[in-house]
């Protein structure tokens, strides 16, 4: 099981801020594939080339390996400051 969180415009597009996701995926890319397979709006929202991801609150790339219990976050480019 993974705790998946979404922020900002992505959260609004998906209509979802948090998800408990059962999966055997071994990388974030694997999770993205599973989430996108749900169809619209997941398919296009998670295909954005500028999508950022974090594993356990640390920015990473989609090829990052994951283990059960991880918190995985997806969000658009950041705009603070």
């Amino acid at each position, binding site marked *: 099981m993974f705790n998946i969180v979404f922020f*900002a*415009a992505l959260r609004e597009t998906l209509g979802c801020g948090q998800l408990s996701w059962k999966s055997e995926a071994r990388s974030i890319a694997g999770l993205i594939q599973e989430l996108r397979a749900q169809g619209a709006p997941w398919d296009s929202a998670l295909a954005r080339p*500028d999508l950022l991801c974090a594993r356990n*609150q640390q920015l990473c790339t989609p090829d990052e390996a994951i283990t059960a219990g991880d918190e995985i976050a997806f969000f658009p480019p950041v*705009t*603070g*400051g």
Partner: protein
Amino acid sequence: MEHLTRIKVQQEDFNLADEYAALGNQADCGAIVSFIGSVRELAGDSLLSMTLEHYPGMTEKSLLQITEQARQRWPLGNITIIHRIGTLSVNEQIVLVLVSSAHREAAFRACEFIMDFLKTRAPFWKKEQTTAAGYWVEAKDSDNQAAQRWSSPES
């Protein structure tokens, strides 16, 4: 001497004089640089408010990591970062960075470095509400370029 880093993510406003006093500047630091970012008016539609969302937990961690990276580059004294969240209107303060060092060059550069990385790495997002609509602010290439310049060796 031990150097302190204070990081706060809060809804409340902050006061520069209070934070300057709270920085607790040490005798070995002869330079203190401060930066304040505030909500500015938009060119076209009139801005009613701006709402800042963040990723609780990761935000504080990423800001701390940015200050640690700054400390690896320059000899710094105490550092304060305050970033507000929630709904703000034009002219309201958004972010404060205070950096001290023995000399001004390190303090100026570290303050810029912290802002450049805060803008491109820390998980904050702005949504602007204008009289016409509400929309999420797009990330700027110029901000990414500003952060990139620190990766060249002459920086």
